[in-house]
Each structure stands twice: as structure tokens, then as C-alpha cells.
């Protein structure tokens, strides 16, 4: 007498079918291109050392949209000509490298110049750094020309630093590109010059490759 097959076999086959189906889906998901929900994070180029608050930054703790988290600040950097309006936060570089924790904010570099309500109160050059991703409108992306060839800012463009005690208007004097290894030694960038504003970002392109140059915008109040 032929014994009927056990239900266990059917169950096993059913499990196998589910696994196979799931496996196919997972495999397809793993092989599919695109950003998906991938997190964005800054490129760490040698000799970069991650700055302090990196681990606590929501942008790196979980994928987007947390990466688009925008902090609030009563100090803002506004560049009307290119539509930049960023909250400004203080940042003390670690290991001699500016590496802002967020894409969505600008950072004045301490212990150099701080935002003031009146240019006459400045005691040092004010350095503001922000990331650029090579696409979109985050950070200093609007400062990079679409073709990645140059800056969108030119002589005479106005940059405002707004604080609760007042707004200082700076006028762009020049833009420069420096190799990443050249920037620390570019004395003209690091001169103590009260009333001067220096914007720093990477010349980041959208292809995802690490930037090899920094963009520096010099403005005077």
C-alpha cells in the first residue's frame, strides 16, 4: 500500500517556496542600482580625522531623511544671489581638519572669527565651512557651478551673516580653488583680517568621487 506523503513535506516545500521567493526578492533588491534610501556622509580624505560630534549626528546615524535634518540657529548665513540660507553653528576642528557634521548647516570655525552684529566688532577673519555634495541645494552646493567648473559667486555678490545683534553684509572679492593639501599652507586664506569672511567647501562633483580641491570664497565687509 502506497503511503500518502507526509504533510511535513508539503510544509517543507512551502517553506522552500517562500524562501525562494524571498531570496529572489532580496537578491533583486541587493543588485538593484540607485540611491534608494542610502545615507549620505562626508568623505574622509586623508589626513582627515572625524570631528567630534560626528557619531551623534542624526545624519550619519541613520539614512535619509535624517541626513536632511536641519538644525536651528539664530545665526544664519544668507547669500541671496544663489539662494543660500543656512543656519550657522560653531565648530572646533579636530586634528587640523574642517569636517562639518551636517550637510544642512554652515559652521564658523573656532577659535577664529565669530559672527558679530557689527563688522567693527570683528577681531579675526570669520571662516564659515559647509559641505557640498555636488548636487542638490544642501550646504554650499549652490556655490558650485552646475558644470563643476567654477563658483557661482562672483565679485560683488553679497553675503550676509545675520545675528540677533545685527547683520553684517560682506561683498565677495574673489573665489579661489586650492588643492586639498595646499589649503592649510595658503597663508592668504588664513590671514587674520577682521572684517573678512572666508567661505570654505569642497569642490565636490556629483560623480561620487572624492573631491581633490577646495573652493574658497573671500568677502569683505
Amino acid at each position: 500500500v502506497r503511503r500518502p506523503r507526509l504533510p511535513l513535506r508539503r510544509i517543507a516545500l512551502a517553506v522552500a517556496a517562500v524562501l525562494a521567493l524571498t531570496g529572489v526578492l532580496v537578491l533583486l533588491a541587493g543588485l538593484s542600482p540607485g540611491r534608494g534610501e542610502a545615507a549620505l556622509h562626508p568623505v574622509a580624505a586623508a589626513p582627515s580625522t572625524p570631528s567630534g560630534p560626528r557619531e551623534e549626528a542624526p545624519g550619519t546615524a541613520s539614512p535619509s531623511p535624517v541626513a536632511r535634518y536641519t538644525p536651528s540657529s539664530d545665526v544664519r548665513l544668507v547669500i541671496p544671489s544663489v539662494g543660500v540660507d543656512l543656519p550657522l553653528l560653531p565648530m572646533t576642528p579636530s586634528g587640523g581638519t574642517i569636517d562639518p557634521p551636517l550637510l544642512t548647516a554652515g559652521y564658523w570655525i573656532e577659535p577664529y572669527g565669530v559672527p558679530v552684529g557689527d563688522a567693527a566688532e570683528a577681531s579675526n577673519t570669520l571662516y564659515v565651512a559647509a559641505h557640498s555634495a555636488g548636487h542638490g541645494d544642501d550646504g554650499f552646493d549652490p556655490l558650485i557651478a552646475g558644470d563643476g567648473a567654477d563658483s557661482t559667486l562672483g565679485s560683488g555678490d553679497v553675503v550676509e551673516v545675520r545675528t540677533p545683534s545685527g547683520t553684517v553684509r560682506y561683498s565677495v572679492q574673489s573665489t579661489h580653488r586650492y588643492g586639498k593639501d595646499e589649503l592649510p599652507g595658503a597663508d592668504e586664506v588664513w590671514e587674520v583680517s577682521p572684517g573678512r569672511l572666508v567661505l570654505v567647501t569642497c569642490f565636490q562633483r556629483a560623480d561620487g568621487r572624492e573631491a581633490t580641491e577646495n573652493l574658497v570664497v573671500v568677502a569683505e565687509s
Partner: protein
Amino acid sequence: MELRRSSSVRLLCRAGAAALLAGAACLAGAPAAGAAEDTPVVALDPPDATILLVPVENLAGLAEADPLGAGSAAADGAGDASAALAGLAALAPPPELAEALGVEDPVAASLAGGPLAGAAAAPADASADASSADAGVAALGDTGILSHTGGGEVDVELGGTLTLRLPPVVQPGDLLADLVVFDDADPEAEPRVFSTDPGDPADQLTVDDLGGNELAVRLPADTGTYGPEALLVVDGLTGTDPQASMVAPLLYYLQFTGSGTGTATVEPSAGVIADVSCPVESEEPCPGTPVTAGGSFDLTVPPTSLLRSFGFGRLDTAGVELYAEDEDSVENYSSEDEGLLTRHDASRATVNVPEDISTGTFYGFTWEGDPLDAGGFAVTTFTVDVQPVAEPVAEPVAVNAGLHSDTGWVEDVREASAGSTKAAAGITMLVVAGLITVVAVAPRRRPPAEG
């Protein structure tokens, strides 16, 4: 002594003016004490002065007769006083004559074409080419041009009288007068010299003190073959101010119009020649005040300045001139140049040194008044050493510590690994499913039959 005559008044004017400036160069002065910390100060505070009497009548006639000479100076922008000074210098006797007359004081020496005669271009003829001035100086030095014939001589009569009214700043003192009469027929001939201290009694010249600072020069009745032109040299005058006791010899060119007993009266004006710090007779060169091209220096007149006692020393009206020491240069600057002089008040003015001025020594002088006016004039010399503009010392620029900038933001590389993980998991799931399927569908093994 060989003397010749010429009627080239223009050359005389130019050369004489150069000689006058050279005289100023001889007297060129030193910086004043008490200079401010930042702006050099030249204080017009001379220790003494020389009185220079100007034969006004000669100059007036000369200017009228020769517009290219003294008169042209004003047209050149040097001003009336400078023009008159140039004309005055044109009356200078040649060196040989000055030497013969015993004229040795610095001013007279300068008027006679002194050692630095070629050192400066004439202020009255600054625009003239250097060769003309040089030619004039050469004419003075080499040929001994004597006369300024062409106008300006004072007409007198043989046997007549020349009355000399002296300005109050001088007095007769130990007077010595010479009347040099030229031989018009023979320019190469030596002139005849009548003197209050003659070598030959036949050449006696008599000068009477009329009182009231007036002198009467009795002119000879007969000069033999000499004439009609003559030169009167009056020496030995002294200043009434102890600080200005030296008086340069007074020179008057005369022209005999005939015989008679007429009286001509002349009234020279008086000028004050001084240096800001060196005594007039100082033989040592006076140091210059260091100034900077493009910078400035102040001229001041202390309240006790000797110039004040003569009624001068007013910087609100005084003219200022600067001349390069370089004898090959015609570089000069005037207060009439826009921007050179900034007047503050009567006691202070600022000289704005041009940025493109040559470096080296510049002789400067201030001039006041009018040599053709009874009020007289004053010339005060000084020297400045123009230094090149000092290269600005760059202050060290404070530089912040340079930083690297890692401000590029790209997609996380972990995304790629996450995809790989998913792919691996999917594959694993498929493998497991396959195994389960294989196991599930595989024929079960029967146990071997018993027995």
C-alpha cells in the same frame, strides 16, 4: 688783468642769475634745531646776515632795455623779485675785476661768478636751455665781460656829482670807493680806476659824507681817453644791526653824458641775505635737512628770528624755491608750482616735496619783498637732502593656523556593501529553499524487509 667788453646783456643776466644762486649755494644752510619727530623742520633763524645793496636804477633801466633778460624772468614765472635778483646778478663784475677791487666776501664773490657759479640754473631762466646759461657763465669766467651796455646805466656828467642815499640798515663806516672807467675805443685795454685810496694821486676819487646817510661822489672832470661807461664800487659800508654788519660792495654802472656840474641821485634798496643756521662767513658746508621724496618739511620763523628785525620772515607771503645741487640738472621747484607750498600762517608753511623729485642735495631759499622797491627784500637759504622713499616695512601679518577641509559629501560606500549583503542573503535563501525542496521531494528510504 685783461678785460673785454660785451653788449650781450642777456647772457649776463643768465650768467649773473646763476652766479647769484651759486652765492646762495655758498651760503646754503643747515637744518634748524628742534625738528619735530615726524616732519622735518627748517627754522628760518639765521645767526647773522649780509646786507646786499641793489642798484635799483640800473635794474630798472636794464629791465626796460632788455626784455629777454631780467624782464623775461617774470614771464617765466619766477616772479618779480626773482627777476630783479636775476637782473641784479647780471650787474656782477667779472671775477678779475672783483679780485682787483679786493672784493672777497661771499656775496660779492658769488656776484662775481663765484666758485659754484655754474651749479644752478638761473631762477629767472629756468626754462632756458642749459647751454645758454653755461655759455654765459663761461663768458664771465673766461673773457671777463665788463659792461652791461644796453640800458640801465645812470647818466652822470664829468665833473658832476653822484649823490648816494643809503638805506637806514647801512652806514658809511670805513668807506672805500672806486670808479672804474672803461676805454670804449679799445675793449682790450685795462680800465682806469679812480679811488678814494688811489695808487696814483691823479686817480683820486673824493666822497663826501653829507649826513643823513647820504654820500656825495665827486666824479672826475676828465678821464682822459676813458669813457663814457664806468662802474662805481662802494665798499666798506657796514650794517647798523650788529648781526648784519657785513655789507656787500655796492655796484653802480654809470654813463658819462658829457661835462658839467649836474648831480644825479641814486637810492639803492637793501636786501638781507642769510642762511638758516650757518654764519655768512662760514667756510664749512652747512648740513642739509633730510627730507623724503613725496614727504614734506616745515618752514618756520621763530619770533626771535633776525629776519623779523628787518621786517621780513613772513611765510604767508614768502616765495620758496628749490634747486638741485647737480650742476648738470635744471631741476627746480617753486612755490608758484601748484601744491609745493602749503601756507599755514606767517610763521609756518609746509613744503610738499614732489614724489618724483631726484634724490640728493637741493639748495633752497625763501625770498620776500622786491629788490626794486625801497622796502627791500630778503633771501634766506637752506639745504635739504632728499632721501629716496623708504620701502615700507611690511608689518608681519598674523596668520591663523591653516586647516584641511573635508567638506565633500558623497554617497555612503556602505550602500554598496549593503546591496551586496542583500544579494548574498537572497542567494542564500534560494540555496536553502533548493535544499529544502530537494530534501522534501527526495524518495524516502524504506527500512530493509524483516526476515
